[in-house]
């Protein structure tokens, strides 16, 4: 166990934890704004370091447990980046509320757990990070401080308990089947030769654990309530970083390591079942939603459907999943942060579509940011989301499941019913509330962050047009 590990392995999480510690100390000294700044700096630094290191260091495995290098460092870096942006966007909110810095710290720790989940190659790390993320999520949802938020948190917790129970049971089976060897790499060979019945049960339980974390179809019940009632910045974090980590981890386990053997061929159809379920449930559920955050909740369920379909489509699916999840994560957090900005521009906004009528006339930049996020989530070209969808379609069609591709296409169209209605509300509805006297100001930090994300989406949408896919997404490939 040589401790002279390359920087990429440990520097990034340390920066974050350092930031958190300093932040909490500042909070203790009752200087909340600086606490938030410190945490944000920690996250931001980690993200930058991650991107830099991912390119330069040779991929490897630290301490037999944590992979690093190229994708395994770049993707967590993206997670940290998004977390940093969420914290910055929520700066005013966290700086004023007394448990504000705590929330920011939770976001930072959550992103560390996400890094562990994503890069971890060991059953124990897997269980720790899953549970850690769950705990952070409960706290974040409850942190919004409203009655409805706490109620959603309790409900989320009740479901969570069953899910973590099932997860542990599944891991127990896997752990047993591999003869007590927790590591994914060596365990998978043992798993291949074991008798099929318990192995399949283990597969099912592990899949349902991930499905619950992702909010996929049968396990989606917590998603709409949680996203609607959490405050927008935490929802921005919750809807992007944990999902990013969980989907990539699932990809690694199902395609890369544990469930490799042909015994687990049925994993594909399981993934397809959950995937199509979430796709349809999310898309159709979204159309009628009045509350925009709840609408984005359903959209989260739908988008996970695409991710699962990508994983289910074999080797071509690997790059498709990566491309999809990167574009989705950026799109989802942009959407939620834009909602935060709407809250700032029109403080008395009741969270519904009707409530935000004509907001684009009041603040054109916000209108643009919202539209870019919505169109990217729909998968319209010139925006990042399009490349995600394109790759999912290509993956599905390359192992000729045409019907699935058509279903995915139809779901995208139905989903525009929801996304488009937000754009329609922002631009074409006449606002009954005349904005000039309201106390809302130009939008503050959330508006700046959503503009930055919108530009990122546009760049991720247009640059591949010029330079082709490989160059841009090579950074993240595993």
């Amino acid at each position, binding site marked *: 166990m040589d401790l002279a590990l390359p920087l990429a392995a440990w520097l990034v999480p340390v920066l974050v934890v350092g930031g958190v510690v300093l932040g909490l100390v500042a909070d203790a000294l009752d200087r909340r704004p600086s606490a938030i700044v410190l945490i944000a700096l920690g996250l931001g630094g980690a993200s930058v370091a991650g991107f830099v290191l991912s390119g330069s260091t040779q991929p490897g495995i630290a301490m037999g447990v944590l992979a690093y290098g190229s994708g395994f460092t770049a993707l967590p870096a993206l997670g940290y980046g998004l977390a940093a942006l969420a914290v910055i966007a929520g700066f005013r909110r966290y700086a004023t509320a007394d448990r504000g810095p705590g929330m920011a710290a939770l976001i930072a720790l959550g992103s560390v757990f996400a890094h562990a989940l994503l890069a971890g190659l060991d059953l124990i790390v897997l269980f720790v990070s899953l549970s850690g993320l769950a705990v952070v999520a409960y706290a974040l949802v409850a942190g919004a401080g409203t009655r409805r938020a706490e109620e959603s948190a309790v409900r989320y917790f009740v479901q969570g308990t069953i899910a973590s129970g099932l997860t542990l049971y599944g891991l127990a089976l896997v752990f047993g089947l591999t003869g007590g060897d927790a590591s994914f790499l060596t365990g998978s060979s043992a798993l291949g030769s074991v008798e099929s019945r318990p192995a399949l049960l283990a597969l099912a339980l592990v899949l349902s654990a991930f499905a619950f974390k992702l909010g996929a179809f049968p396990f989606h019940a917590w998603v709409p309530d949680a996203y609607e009632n959490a405050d927008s910045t935490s929802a921005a974090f919750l809807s992007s970083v944990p999902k990013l980590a969980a989907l990539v981890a699932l990809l690694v386990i199902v395609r890369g390591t544990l469930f490799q053997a042909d015994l687990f061929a049925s994993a594909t159809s399981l993934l397809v079942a959950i995937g199509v379920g979430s796709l349809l449930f999310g898309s159709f559920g979204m159309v009628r939603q009045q509350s925009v955050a709840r609408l984005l909740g359903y959209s989260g369920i739908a988008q996970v459907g695409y991710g699962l379909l990508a994983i289910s489509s074999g080797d071509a699916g690997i790059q498709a999943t990566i491309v999809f999840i990167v574009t989705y994560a950026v799109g989802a957090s942009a959407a939620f942060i834009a909602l935060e900005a709407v809250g700032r521009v029109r403080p008395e906004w009741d969270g519904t579509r009707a409530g935000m009528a004509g907001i684009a006339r009041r603040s054109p930049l916000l209108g643009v940011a919202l539209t870019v996020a919505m169109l990217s989530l729909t998968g*319209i070209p*010139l925006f990042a989301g399009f490349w995600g969808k394109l790759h999912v379609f290509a993956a599905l069609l390359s192992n000729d499941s045409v019907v699935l*591709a058509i279903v995915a296409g139809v779901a995208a169209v139905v989903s525009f019913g929801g996304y488009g209605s937000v754009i329609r509300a922002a*631009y074409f509805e006449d606002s009954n509330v005349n904005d000039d006297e309201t106390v809302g100001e130009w939008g503050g930090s959330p508006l700046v962050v959503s503009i930055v994300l919108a530009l990122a989406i546009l760049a991720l949408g247009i640059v591949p*047009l010029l330079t*082709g896919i490989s160059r841009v997404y090579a950074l993240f490939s595993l």
Partner: protein
Amino acid sequence: MTLALLIAIPLAGALVSAVVGRSTAVARIIALAASLGTAGVAAVVWQAYASSAEALTYEFTMDGAGSFLRLAADGLSVPLVALTALLGIIAVLASWNVERIGTHMSLLLALEAAVIGVFLAADLILFYVAWEAVLIPMFFLIGGWGHENRRYAAMKFFIYTFAGSALMLVGLVLLVVLGGTGTGMPATPLPIEPASQTLVFWLLAAGLLVKIPVVPLHTWLPDAHVEAPTAGSIMLAGVLLKMGAYGIARISIPYTPDAFAAAAPILAALGVIGIVYGAAMALGQCDLKRLVAYSSVAHMGFVVLGLASGTELGLQGAMLGMVSHGLVAGLLFFLVGALYERAHTRDIGAFGGLGVTLPRWATIFVVASLASLGLPGLSGFPGEFASVVAGFGRFGFVIAVAGIGIVLAGAYTLRAVRLVVHGEPAATQAPADGLQPAALRDLDARELLIAVPLVALIVALGIWPRLVTDIAAATLGALASLAGTVS
């Protein structure tokens, strides 16, 4: 390099006018400059292609990475690009005094750039990206500057076309996967294996037929037209409808020739139904814009018939039909828009005797109507004639049904002329919501600057259709041989 300019200039114009669009004068200058610039480059491309007669290509490569940005201009796309550029200028001039002019002009120029992108795309992915990119500006033009139920029309327009193009995306990706030669569109693409051609053809057709539009999939067009602002309608009718037919010629015929040949009778039937159905519907309309919208369905029916015949004459007929409809529909929508600006109503009953009150407007309206019903000597006739003759050659007497459509075309156009231009001036009729004939002032210099060149082009194309067909002959010939029948 010039091809890239064709997209770059309008895009640049769009960005600049969006940013600086506060003052009307500046926005107008920039928009006009951008559209004129694009038209200039389009003329250069036309000249270059006419003299060298082999396709101009352009590929953007940045240090070796495989880029999707491949452009090519050949006989099929040069006329349509020129039409887009021309209508771009017309649209800019037509939206001279529109409110929030900065954003309106930038959306218009973005729309023009996207449409030119579709016509020049030599890469399946770029084709799809440009195809969808057209939706966004149009969606905002309809929604932002429309009239009463603009919201419904904008949503319906977007979802209708997006539903079609989602399936088209599946088709395109399947094409790339099966084709195996990457996403580029070579000059003479090799067809994919016959087994899956039918599936790919009908997937592509879903997106393409919605855009043309073909009858069962057309209900978005009247709403979109009624709600779109004048400039939006000009571009929508002038070029957007051509993207569907262009797609069939550019992708369906070369990549899935056997499936196209097999589906040709269905396409021809859809074309003929479109002709008759569009004309019958137009006959019953009392809103001028809806009437012209349905007439567009009828005209595009001829284009589809021409395409379905698969012969070179048919394809030339389709090409002529597209260019002529662009000019005629563009002119008609401009006139209706100008009338709406003055009278604030599009109801056909509210007018009458405009021949007396608005002589200049009336004369141009009559010429445009005669062109729209396919009178020889005006641009409508050659396209229709070639499509019908070619269609008849391929499918025989079933095409005679289109004859009903031709007569009905005369009926609804002349009914419109009778109700609007002929009869006593409105003074004697009950003026609709305070419409005093005196309030109507005739076309001014700017509006004449738009209408007269269009009329000149319509007459020129009517007398000598080879202005367009000579340019397109080589490409259409190759396509016709691909489509199986060469007669």
